[in-house]
């Protein structure tokens, strides 16, 4: 059997593990919830997995580095690398994960040119959408589809999760349509993401990665808002781990 390289992406909500062969093809992938003890969850995930080298990314990468004595790479570079394998011409990547979001622009060579990240709070992240879905009584899997069923947006003025939640509650109490509120919430996240993208790159296709890229309303609104093509790989939440695995392979 040829060599195998693994990448592990330890996010605040989930952990992904991807193993590739020497051609860069995904031969194994696993996902688990991060829970309250990320290192135990990570240990379980890699247990019994067979690989020659592993590289960690995600907010838990430094903890993993200490616990397992491995190499690390930031989410920025990992997502850039992962996105390029699906879309070799990509110049712009938007990643929205559970706890943060980032826009990245790339040089022709695939190197990172510039990036922007959201600041400390949950505004504009997967967590924000999750809480809002719950407040509206949708499950997160269908949240985007439900929002798309509405033609109209109800504007949400707060980006702060706490204020937005009470704003939504009072809109519901005011008898407003839940789908319209949902669409409004999606719009507010997209506007923020669009601002970040515009600061790093102004034209060309956008590769959308991270768990939130699975949401069809987010993809559609992103394309509409920016007037740019949005490309999404099949398993967008695996892109970071895949990038890390490929970078593990590149090491001499």
């Amino acid at each position, binding site marked *: 059997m040829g060599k195998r390289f693994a990448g592990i992406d330890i996010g605040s909500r989930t952990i992904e593990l991807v193993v590739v062969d020497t051609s860069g093809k995904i031969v194994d992938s696993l996902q688990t919830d991060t829970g309250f003890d990320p290192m135990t969850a990570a240990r379980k995930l890699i247990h019994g997995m067979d690989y020659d080298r592993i590289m960690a990314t995600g*907010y838990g990468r*430094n903890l993993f580095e200490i616990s397992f004595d491995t190499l690390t*790479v*930031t*989410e*920025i*570079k990992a997502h850039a690398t992962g996105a390029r394998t699906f879309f070799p011409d990509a110049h712009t990547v938007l990643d929205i994960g559970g706890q*943060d979001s980032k826009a990245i622009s790339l040089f022709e060579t695939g*190197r*990172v*040119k*510039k*990036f922007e*990240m959201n*600041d*400390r709070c949950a505004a504009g992240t997967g967590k924000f959408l999750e809480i809002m879905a719950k407040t509206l009584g949708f499950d997160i899997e269908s949240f985007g589809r439900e929002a798309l069923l509405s033609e109209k947006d109800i504007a949400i003025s707060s980006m702060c999760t706490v204020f937005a939640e009470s704003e939504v509650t009072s809109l519901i109490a005011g008898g407003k349509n839940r789908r319209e509120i949902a669409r409004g919430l999606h719009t507010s996240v997209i506007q923020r993401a669009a601002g970040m993208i515009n600061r790093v790159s102004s034209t060309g296709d956008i590769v959308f990665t991270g768990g939130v890229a699975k949401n069809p309303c987010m993809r559609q609104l992103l394309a509409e808002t920016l007037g740019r093509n949005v490309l999404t790989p099949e398993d967008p939440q695996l892109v970071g781990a895949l990038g890390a695995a490929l970078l593990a392979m590149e090491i001499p």
Partner: protein
Amino acid sequence: MTEDYREMWTHLGLDLDAHDALLGVLGGAYQDIFLSQKNRPEGMKYFDFVMSEVHGLRIKELLDEKKAGRKIVGSYCVFVPEEIVLAAGATLVGLCSGADFATPEVEKLLPRNTCALIKSSFGFKLGKVCPYLESADMIVGENTCDGKKKAYESLGHLVKNLYVMDLPQVKSDQGRALLKSEYQRFRTAMEALTGAAVTSESLKQAIQTVNAKRAAIHRLSILRKADPAPISGLDALLANQVFFYDNPARFTDSVNQICDELEKRIAEKKGVFPAGTPRILVSGCPQAVPNWKLPFIVETSGAVIVGEESCVGERGARNLTDASGETVDEMMDAIVDRYYQVDCAIFTPNPQRLEHIQEMVATYRADGVIHYGLQFCQPYLMESFPIEKALEEKKIPTLRIETDYSMEDVGQLKTRIEAFIEQLR
């Protein structure tokens, strides 16, 4: 620390419990951040000693000076001319403002969205933990940013002898004239404080003393050009921080000694990090003791800081004062000339700062720039946008960060800084 320091602190009116807590945190941080570094120059032992005695021996020295009749003046800005203070027979100490303290008390007097530096200066006063502040016979404030100039109105009620210096906001003939008249007024105030006249001899001597201190720092800065870097950014920042409160002559000697050692290191191609380590220039707001957050993150993420475009750094120490004048007036003019060049973001417009950043990138062979802005600091945060744009047009990678003294954003900052360093490799 010995008991006689405790007596000294009590005498100064410090809150001993709070002060113990502060020193405990400070000592721990120093251990983790500075003493854990590898390949440090031997000469840094002096600064380790200074730091371990920062509230002890140095305060005792100042109190001894006071007993001998000398006055102590505290300042918050590099626009307060040390030459004039020394020439009038007083000692100038920089008041650091680099850590959060007594924040709930501070926020009774200042809005929450005040920069960490200003809040810290109030916190040290309200928490009664700064022996420098309590030893000072006069505190000099200055009308720089809006935050500071309004905050001094409140600080005036908290400290004994606050003197506020006005400063120009525009580099124009009127601006220069204002600086000149304010420095004259300051000279008179210093003479009144000490009872000693500023003479051509004392002023010349003072200019030479301060120039020597700056020249030593310039020498240190230039040595940081070498790859591998002979000294870490953390240690160099520390030297720049100690600049503000150490005895000037002793400081000058100690920095020169380190430089002798660094020259040997460079000749042997020895450094603190391997050759080829990504090199970063930090530009922006001052980093006062014990604000070591940014360089600690940078230098534990695989890069080295090779310069600080900052008031605790090159903006503050750049340019010597011409000492060739014979009369007090001539030398006062030379002092005005020297300070008039400081390119603080409170000036509008402020094109020299961008030029200096580019010059420093070239001189210190930096691979990228991190613009360090304190949250709520309008002058520097506003400048950060055009600076980022201009640097990127010149293909100088730039990362703009906005932070404060708290530790809650360290994880996020680390990710951004590591990603920036990956970009530079």
